[in-house]
């Protein structure tokens, strides 16, 4: 056990897998000497050498496309894309090949690779550095999309992602890279992909969130408790495949669902969860399912970002509205 930030916990997961499996390699922009702009790969090149942890040329399509080549020929590449906004040059490789080679080859080739990148707002960054594109990846069949909300989860999910024989998009909520510190076991463990976690049980309203917003929800829930509202908080953990069962159980119990996420609300994880709540618990619904999400606008730069970011009071406001409906 030692106290870790999410950065450290992911670094630890990578370290463990690099150590025990010589087919694991890590590359991307500045992941070598520099250890990544957020230092997630710090120290790994020194420990495992430049053939296993290295800087690539500056080209995301190349990073992802070559990783696919490695994955079908015996390696388990983990690639870092520097920010969520720079996943798009690789979008064609992801949507046309990474997600499809297994199906195209009828299982002759598996694609055990991880594409990891920081995402989300709240760090007063430049454009393309504050976005939440999870829905875009979740809509592409053949991918798994994972988002941790704590250092503990990040380590366990990352180990599972590396060991998955299917390609995993691993999105790291950069806002809480260092904001949360937690006791994390030093040894290897993994958490199942595709399973949500009930963080807190409750009876009045189901709140579903993931990543950095779990913390904000917890603050809102504390406000709710004061107001006498019992909230069940679910951390989705995996965006695809989504854990219907956990949603079903909870919404059938509470009859109310509020989805909290930072992405643009239209055609989002929020939309999907509302659809699921309807399909799985229609007769139990006692209030309109709500989305507390980003606007359909570009995330504003630092001076305007506070309008866009989801704060606890806004979450509480929507929980209360839903509760009182």
């Amino acid at each position: 056990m030692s106290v870790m930030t999410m950065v450290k916990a992911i670094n630890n997961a990578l370290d463990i897998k690099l150590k025990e499996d010589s087919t694991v390699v890590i590359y991307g922009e500045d992941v070598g000497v520099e250890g990544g702009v957020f230092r997630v790969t710090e120290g790994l090149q020194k420990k495992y050498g430049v053939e296993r942890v290295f800087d690539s040329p500056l080209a995301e399509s190349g990073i992802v496309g070559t990783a696919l080549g490695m994955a079908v020929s015996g390696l388990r590449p983990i690639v870092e894309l520097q920010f969520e906004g720079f996943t798009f040059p690789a979008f064609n490789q992801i949507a046309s090949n990474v997600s499809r080679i297994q199906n195209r080859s009828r299982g002759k080739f598996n694609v055990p690779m991880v594409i990891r990148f920081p995402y989300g707002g709240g760090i007063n960054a430049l454009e393309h550095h504050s976005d939440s594109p999870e829905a875009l990846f979740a809509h592409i069949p053949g991918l798994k999309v994972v988002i941790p909300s704590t250092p503990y989860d990040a380590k366990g999910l990352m180990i599972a992602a590396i060991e998955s024989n299917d390609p995993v998009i691993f999105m790291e909520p950069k806002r809480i890279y260092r904001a949360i510190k937690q006791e994390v076991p030093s040894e290897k463990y993994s958490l199942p992909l595709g399973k949500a976690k009930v963080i807190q049980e409750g009876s009045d309203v189901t709140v579903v969130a993931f990543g950095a917003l779990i913390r904000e929800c917890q603050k809102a829930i504390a406000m709710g408790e004061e107001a006498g509202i019992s909230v069940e908080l679910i951390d989705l953990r995996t965006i695809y495949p989504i854990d219907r069962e956990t949603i079903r159980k909870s919404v059938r119990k509470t009859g109310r669902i509020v989805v909290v996420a930072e992405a643009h609300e239209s055609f989002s994880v929020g939309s999907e969860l509302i659809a699921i709540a309807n399909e799985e618990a229609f007769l139990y619904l006692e209030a309109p399912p709500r989305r507390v999400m980003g606007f359909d606008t570009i995330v504003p730069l630092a001076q305007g970002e506070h309008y866009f970011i989801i704060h606890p009071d806004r979450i509480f406001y929507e929980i209360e509205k839903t509760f009182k409906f």
Partner: protein
Amino acid sequence: MIQENLPAIFRDFNPLENKMLSLIDNDGEVVNPKYMPSLNDAIVIEAYKQMLYERIADEMAVSYQRQGRMYTYTPNLGQEAIHIAAGMHIREQDWLVPAFREMGTLLAKGVTMKEMFLFYLGNERGGSFQNANHTLPIAISIGTQLHHATGIGYSVKYRKKDEAVFTFIGDGGTSEGDFSEALNFAGVWQVPVVFTIQNNQYAISVPVRSQTKSINLAVKSVAFGIPGIKVDGNDFFAMYLAYQTAAAHALAGNGPVLIEAFTYRLGAHTTSDDPSKYRKKEEENEWGLTDPLLRLKRYMEKKGIFTIDEKKLTEEYKKEITGQFLDAEKNKAYPYDDVFDHMYTDMPDELKRQKAEYEEFLNWKENRR
């Protein structure tokens, strides 16, 4: 240009001087004896047979499509010398990362015509090339495959394997960003990849002069610091020498190579395409004179080694290919499970649910009849 250990042909046929490696002319006459590879007759005969096989299979595929027995097909006509010369240098353990117009090379790797037919009949089982070792499926999204080849090259180098990687792209494909990125990565990583541009002069209707202002396509290698050469793609011997040299270079750890195979698509882009819309009959006729089979045959005849009974062989091949087509046609059925089974190594609950719901509908449909 950069490397000291560069084989002589890369210097003698420097693409910066717009030179092209060509060894025999249209009449099968040797024009460049210095570089003519000394192949024993059996190999030359074998090459001709393979080219003939590809041509016949290709013609038959076009005709099955015309009969409405197969969906849109992509002909290979005129590009056989490239495919067979490459095939002769790709060993069992070497990797083939195809584009979509190198059937002869796929066949050399162990792909069967039954599989090709099955693919064009609309069944992924055909296109998966189950029995061809180290062979990727066809790449439809143009350019993307070059990155896969470069990545495999890294993997091979990292695991210290005696394996080379062969990959293909068209002249049009060189305009895609992925082409440049992949060659650049390969240069930096010094991986054993042989890149071939099949410059067949057109990307569907667009001529290569509308594709780029570079003096030829081989010269693009300069931008990535890798050796490049322009080769007469309709000259079997030139292509043979190019692949022999490139494979040796790559396997010796000297890094990637770019080959521009200068050729012509004698047929249509696909069976849905009508070339008369965008090119002249005269142009096609002129290129027809450089037909790789004709050239090789003339060479062999001159040398007195054309011992093949072409008519008989053609009949044999036709019969065998017909058998494969019928087999594919008989086995084209698509079990429902195939839609879902290969999306993930473990089927997620979401897919199980979708499958189950659809089955409910199928039951309803069944009962309604």
